[in-house]
């Protein structure tokens, strides 16, 4: 290959997948280099994703075929505005998690095992967002799941192992059901591509089986109520940077696939009732997750249940988009939720990790007066909480506003009521920890000092959630490229 071919922006997708993979292999072979491989990957991936985003804004979606072998036997990669946004948020959040993990794992034995697994997870995420056919998505889903499970087990406690094995079994079940759907899809249509527009005339009834199977598998992997039971233990018992990655990014992977399938491939075959059904499950998730968060005794469990609730917000994109009137607001709203939740939830988990590092436990009842010892972490928690509640000027507010607007214009005001209730409940559970942090305790109990990088990466991510709220025009411009509603 000539230098020109290597540097052609069209090849960026391949590099974006390969760099973390190479770093993972390096981290396995030479364990001491793990941390540096991570940092190097973070910087390089961020640069490449930025370049890809620029390319997409200027020239439209990017396609490439690996090795010159054409689909369906070869693998094609595709990147449009949505892919770029997901890759971007992955690079941002993963970069911060990488920096945090340097502090978190420094000097511990788990570091040797963390870095290769973390790089594999990142490679899997990148490959997932760049895949152009539904079977490749299955492969990336599996890689993602396996790395995530191994990372959860890294804590080494019995609870963590049990949570990990449950996560693994549920994940494999979901992927298997998804694969069955892929098989049916192939049997009916004879193709695997994501961007195909299957002609409406061709056997609409037989499209419901593949769709139902694929959707069921993906809903199981995305932890939509009532399939959420595996998520709280897994996210609560993992080490803090892993919890951040799981809540912020990994659950978004399967959600992304469902988005693609619903709006690109299966759109003409979906009847509005299924959209409303998904909406009802989403509403249940919001209410149930928030209530459980109010009752949780441990901080990380509270945050994990908050994820269950926020996933409900994500899934509201389906009923709200099923009505054409009012424009594509729900599309942007849902994606904005994905982006801002990724930043905010990662920030919250990272700051919870700092608190746990300092105090040795995360029982909320005993976490008073933290603001004196860890002001930066508490502030990060607060800022991220603003986005989770949906208060201005954060990304969460923009997302909520877009949803509310679409709900009211389209006449589906009941979703608006659910969201408002969700916001009030979120305020309650965020303040459960936050208020306690301000209690003025006379005794300043000794706690382990927390590396500064742990606190400041959390704060940085929290700021990103806020800045997302102010940069909406730019972000929507990127998301518009390849918008399925055009």
């Amino acid at each position, binding site marked *: 290959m000539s230098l020109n071919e290597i540097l052609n922006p069209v090849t960026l997708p391949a590099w974006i997948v390969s760099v973390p993979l190479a770093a993972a292999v390096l981290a396995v072979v030479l364990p001491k280099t793990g941390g540096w491989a991570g940092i190097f990957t973070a910087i390089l991936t961020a640069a490449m994703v930025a370049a890809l985003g620029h390319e997409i804004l200027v020239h439209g979606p990017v396609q490439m075929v690996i090795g010159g072998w054409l689909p369906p036997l070869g693998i094609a990669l595709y990147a449009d505005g949505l892919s770029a946004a997901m890759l971007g948020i992955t690079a941002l959040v993963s970069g911060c998690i990488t920096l945090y993990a340097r502090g978190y794992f420094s000097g511990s034995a788990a570091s040797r095992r963390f870095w290769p697994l973390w790089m594999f997870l990142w490679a899997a995420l990148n490959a997932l967002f760049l895949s152009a056919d539904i079977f490749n998505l299955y492969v990336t889903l599996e890689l993602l799941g396996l790395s995530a499970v191994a990372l959860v087990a890294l804590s080494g406690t019995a609870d963590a192992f049990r949570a990990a094995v449950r996560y693994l079994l549920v994940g494999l079940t979901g992927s298997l059901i998804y694969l069955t759907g892929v098989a049916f899809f192939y049997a009916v249509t004879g193709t695997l591509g994501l961007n195909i527009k299957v002609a409406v005339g061709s056997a609409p009834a037989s499209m419901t089986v593949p769709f139902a199977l694929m959707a069921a598998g993906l809903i199981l992997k995305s932890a939509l109520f009532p399939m959420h039971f595996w998520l709280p233990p897994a996210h609560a018992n993992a080490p803090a940077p892993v919890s951040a990655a799981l809540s912020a990014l990994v659950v978004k992977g399967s959600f992304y696939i469902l988005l693609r399938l619903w709006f690109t491939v299966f759109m003409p075959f979906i009847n509005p009732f299924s959209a409303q059904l998904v909406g009802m499950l989403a509403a249940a998730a919001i209410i149930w997750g928030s209530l459980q968060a109010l009752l949780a005794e441990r901080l990380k469990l509270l945050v994990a249940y908050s994820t269950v609730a926020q996933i409900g917000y994500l899934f509201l994109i389906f009923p709200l988009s099923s009505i054409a009137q009012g424009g594509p607001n729900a599309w942007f709203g849902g994606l904005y939720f994905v982006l801002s939740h990724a930043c905010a939830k990662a920030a919250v988990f990272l700051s919870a990790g700092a608190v746990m590092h300092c105090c040795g436990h995360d029982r909320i009842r005993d976490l008073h*007066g933290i603001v*004196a010892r860890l*002001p930066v972490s508490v502030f990060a928690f607060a800022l991220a909480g*603003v986005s989770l*509640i949906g*208060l*201005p*000027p954060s990304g969460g*507010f*923009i997302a909520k*506003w*877009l949803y*509310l*607007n679409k709900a*009211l*214009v389209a006449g589906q005001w009941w979703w*608006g009521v659910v969201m*408002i209730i969700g*916001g*009030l409940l979120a*305020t309650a559970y965020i*303040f459960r920890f936050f*208020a306690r942090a*301000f*209690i*003025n305790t006379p005794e300043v109990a000794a706690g382990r000092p927390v590396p500064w990088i742990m606190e400041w990466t959390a704060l940085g991510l929290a700021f990103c959630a806020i800045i997302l709220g*102010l940069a*909406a*025009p730019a972000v*929507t411009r990127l998301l518009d490229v390849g918008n399925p509603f055009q």
Partner: protein
Amino acid sequence: MKFDDWLPLLILFTSLLPGIVIFLLPEERTRWRTALNLGGAGLKLVLTGIMIWGVRHAHVYETRLPMLPEIELVLNADAMSMMMTALSGVLWFVTTLYAIAYLETSSQSRSRFFGFFSLCVSSTIGIALAGNLITFLMFYEMLTLTTYPLVVHRGTPESLHAGRTYIAYTIAGGAAFLIGVAWLKALVGSVAFTEGGMLAPYVDLFPSQLRLIFLLMICGLGVKAALVPLHGWLPQAMVAPAPVSALLHAVAVVKAGAFGIVRVVYDVYGIEFSAELGLLQPLAAAAAFTIVYGSVRALFQDELKKRLAFSTVSQVSYIALGAAILGPIATIGGIVHLVHQGLMKITLFFCAGNFAETLGVHHVSRMHGIGRRMPWTMAAFTVGALGMIGVPPLAGFVSKWYLGAGAMAAGKPWVIAVLIASSLLNAAYFLPILYRGWFQEPAEPGFGQPPAGKLETHWMLLGPPLLTALLALLAGLLANAPFSPLEWARLITAREYHP
């Protein structure tokens, strides 16, 4: 963009940037903190002055920032914004002086306090300058978030309980307001503040939906404006340090709610249209009830700050009452009371803070003879109290006069009864304090004379209440002078009524 387009944003930044820097300052850097605080406050006053001059000469100052495809962040300087901005700027300056003196003796975490203090003022300025409901909503919620750490500053269980109540009320109010704004946007498409209101053309299309939206918005705003029964957070928030009470009750939170009600009635619905929809009667009734209820509750409070809190509940509803009566005279009364009540109430709170800080006196029952020990503070308190009662020539009298005259002009004599009752009640709970403080023998040791050769208390604790008391006096005495609050209110009102 020209300088004119950036000026509103700059005014916002004069407190935002110092606030952010102050957060990062270590505790010991007192001088830096003071310099940033006062520098920012001073700069804000200068820029506000420039803008007031400009608005008088019909300059247009507007910052528009796109937030979403159909929504812009708009900061706009019209007459009403300038009045609120000027009030906030002046009062922030004096409160900063006061807070520096008040906190330097007692506490910890001053960087955190002054950081949020500055952010709180930025939010208030944002509310003042907001040019549409979305911008207003944004800064309204930001105000909630930035005032919470101030309320819980002391970290005691009472503070946290008060903070929890505060958040519960204000977030719920914010949610109601959000629904109202989103609904209005979905119905009508535009949510910009327009002089004279912009909803009149829609009267035939959705009257009942517009009524419901009005109710939602007033409920949301009424929480901060302490309309009964949404006032429950206010007396509890008195556990906060005195500068916070002063800020919350004169400048920021309560005024934001009242200002919002004025904006919604005049610049979103339009006063004539509101009357047409039948929205004014219920609002007037709620305001009148609050006025009387607040005054009655104040009678039974022994703790001075709680008495002042209920007095605030009562007095702020004068503004809502003025907005709810159709007619320019009542409008003038309500709008000018925004300024007058601010000046008088902050004086009272400063004095209460002085009594607590210097002498440890928190209760009215211990205030015997306190006027001998702290004559200047007591004098300022007297000016504020008399103004609240409505004694001429103080500012409070001017507002009540206009409200009364406006009620007569609108054919609502019952409002005059409410005003008289309220004045009587005010006298009933303020005059005993004055009598006790000036004329009764001191029961506490050390209340005899002020310390020889020294000021009765720190100059930065003494200066602000004297200054604001003087301003309250001048606002009343010189009410007909150009650039007085009254004259400004007349200017605003003239633009709100269609000829």
